[in-house]
């Protein structure tokens, strides 16, 4: 595959000449200048490891990352039997069922509120976006050590203490499963701002004429405008947000790892695979699980793209 075939058809009809084609060649050069480093990084750090994992997943790889001891689909069959990996997929499903609609609704709500604000809009926008810049690890530690620690001087317990409620060990209590509260709130805090910005951008692209026309046609209240104008107009944004949220939920790792460690009662797939590969040094099963997960994400992404038309022009 020679480079020019990837580029605009104009470039490959004839060898570039001095003047007439100079512009096209310059554009091609600029294209590779900007895309090249990113592409190289993506190939080395993403695509090669993916292919390597794929190869390794058909091999028995205990304490080695060199494929060779071929065992066909055995690793896949082991994982797809009832066991911790399938349990972890169930954990993920529960988690996604909580987090996806909640983040979606809250970030959309925030964006609508913010869009209606007339003063200090930039300030509010920054304030809500800021948590996105915080690392999951740091946020998890803050949640674990100061807000939801289990002793009397944790923030949550201090406040409950004012009302005479006993200390609650938030992360250790399994009935009721308070740890979900910690996990879900930390992720909401970290994520909402980012999706709010996406929605805000979408909202600002809706033409005001539509609202005027709706008012003329007799759209009575805010709910009707939202239901028939705003929400349909946000379709492209909503689809993108849903997709990102779902992928993100599949990839949940940091807060579970830092807050709950290797707990069988709430262990998403990536945490299980991390302990399989890094802890047990069982890279065969680890990579097979990663491939299954990648396939799942791909199927969901493609299905969603099919149904809602992700990335299509409107």
């Amino acid at each position, binding site marked *: *595959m020679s480079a020019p*075939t*990837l*580029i*605009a*058809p104009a470039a490959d009809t004839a060898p570039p000449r001095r003047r007439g084609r100079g512009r096209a060649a310059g554009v091609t050069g600029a294209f590779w200048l900007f*895309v090249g480093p990113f592409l190289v990084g*993506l190939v080395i750090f*993403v*695509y090669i490891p993916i292919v390597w994992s794929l190869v390794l997943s058909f091999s028995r790889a*205990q*304490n*080695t*990352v060199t494929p060779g001891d071929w065992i066909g689909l055995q690793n896949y069959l082991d994982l797809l039997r009832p066991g*911790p990996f399938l349990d972890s997929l169930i954990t993920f499903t529960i988690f996604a069922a909580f987090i996806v609609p909640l983040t979606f609704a809250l970030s959309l709500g925030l964006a609508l509120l913010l869009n209606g604000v007339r003063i200090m809009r930039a300030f509010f926008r920054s304030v809500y976006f800021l948590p*996105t*810049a915080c*690392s*999951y*690890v740091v946020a998890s530690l803050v949640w674990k*050590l100061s807000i*939801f*620690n*289990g*002793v*009397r001087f*944790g923030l949550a317990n201090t406040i409950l203490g004012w009302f005479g409620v006993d*200390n*609650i*060990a*938030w*992360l*250790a*209590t*399994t*009935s009721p499963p308070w740890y979900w509260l910690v996990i879900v709130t930390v992720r909401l805090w970290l*994520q909402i701002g*980012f*999706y709010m910005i996406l929605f805000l951008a979408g909202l600002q692209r809706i033409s005001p004429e539509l609202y005027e026309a709706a008012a003329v046609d007799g759209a009575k209240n805010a709910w009707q405008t939202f239901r028939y104008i705003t929400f349909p107009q946000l379709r492209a944004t909503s689809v993108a947000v849903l997709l*990102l949220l779902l*992928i*993100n939920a599949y*990839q949940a790792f*940091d807060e579970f790892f830092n807050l709950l*460690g*290797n*707990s*069988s009662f709430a262990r998403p797939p990536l945490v299980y695979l*991390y*302990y*399989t590969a*890094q*802890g*047990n*040094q*069982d890279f065969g099963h680890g990579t097979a699980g990663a491939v299954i997960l*990648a396939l799942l*994400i*791909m199927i969901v*992404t493609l299905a969603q793209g099919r149904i809602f038309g992700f990335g299509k022009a409107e």
Partner: protein
Amino acid sequence: MTGQSFDRRRFLRGLGLGAAAIGGSQLLAACGGGSSGLSGSQGGGASSGASGSKPALNVWYHQYGEAGTQQAVMRYAKEYPNASVKVQWTPGDYTSKLNAGLLSTSGPDVFESGVNIDQVKSGQVVALDDIIAEAKSDYPAADIKSSTVDGKIYQVKMVDDMGVLYYRKSILDKAGVKPPTTIDELIAASKALTTKDQKGLFIGNDAGVTPSFGGGSLLGPVLYTVGSDYLTADNKPGFTSAAVKQSFAKMRELFVSNSILLGAPTDWWDPSSFTQGLAAMQWCGLWAMPGIQKALKDDFGVVAWPQFSSSVGKPSTFLGGWGAMVSAKSANVDAAKAYIKWLWIDNTKDQEDFNLSYGFHIPPRKSLAAQASKLQSGPAADALKIFNDHAVPGNPAWTPKMNNAYADAATAIVRKGGDIDANLAKAEKVVNAELTRLFG
């Protein structure tokens, strides 16, 4: 490849989707984590000591909690005349980093760990019989046992660790409670010592059964207390007897008694919860004793993990600690062995310093432990006696995979109230499959 197939927009969209699937929004928002976990000081490398110069050795440690330990190992490294030794001190998840390091040529030459049968079988570590031969009889039999696979020794113990049950004398006296000698007494004491702001017992935020970040402190003792072990002497699962099931039922009883401390700022291996009065008793390591002495003077005592009942089982503790090992991928295996022999076998002065000047550990060489003045009186002497009488060595054939399966069962039983028989049977299946893989 004719025309039309590929245009720039589609190409970029493909890349973007790929990036979104991999990095999610974190990548798009161009921020997020970003801590690499590596200390960056890899330069100098382990390979090819230029002719005439001393070989270079990379030596990896996990982070010991006690102040001064890092400076100590740096000093030992500097004192060594025959190689230029570079110390890598690793806070956080040392095991994962070490596992990755052992797969690559830029990993450690010498590292601390414990012996694991898969590392031996896959040829990642080097046997050390030749350097330990002369001194072998000066090591406790338990140490030799936990260092040996198929008759060969793969580590030189640097420190021996053990757990003890610390208790506050004054608080127990006030409540009229005696240091527990059976599990029932332990549960009763834990309940009796619980007040509004103080729990009776601290065994870890994971209730002692979930092995991450150093947790799972009681996965062994819950078996030892009834006289069982992870694996039997002939390498069969040792955790499925009726006695073990009773022991798990008691652990569950302890968990739901609302008398154990959970959600503390630090975990069982750190004495802060005990010294700050969050718990009246704590299962913790001997390593924490200097800190406890400093905080509580002589208002504390130690006992072993209690036996199950007056007629069943025996008191116990774990034999832990760290051993120095050599990576088979090292370019300087002989120099690495020579360094271990110099520091952890011959150099008794530094061994005593490392074991007893910072936290308390038991110097692995028996001759050294017997004469160490700090272990001769008070609770430290009680601990040494518990160690000599009751410490249970680890078994290198107990793989991390077995441990994870067993710990999943323990977590489900103790923390979730899961069915004891069903969960242990699930773990037994995994362990049996592993044993078949290892021994046929």
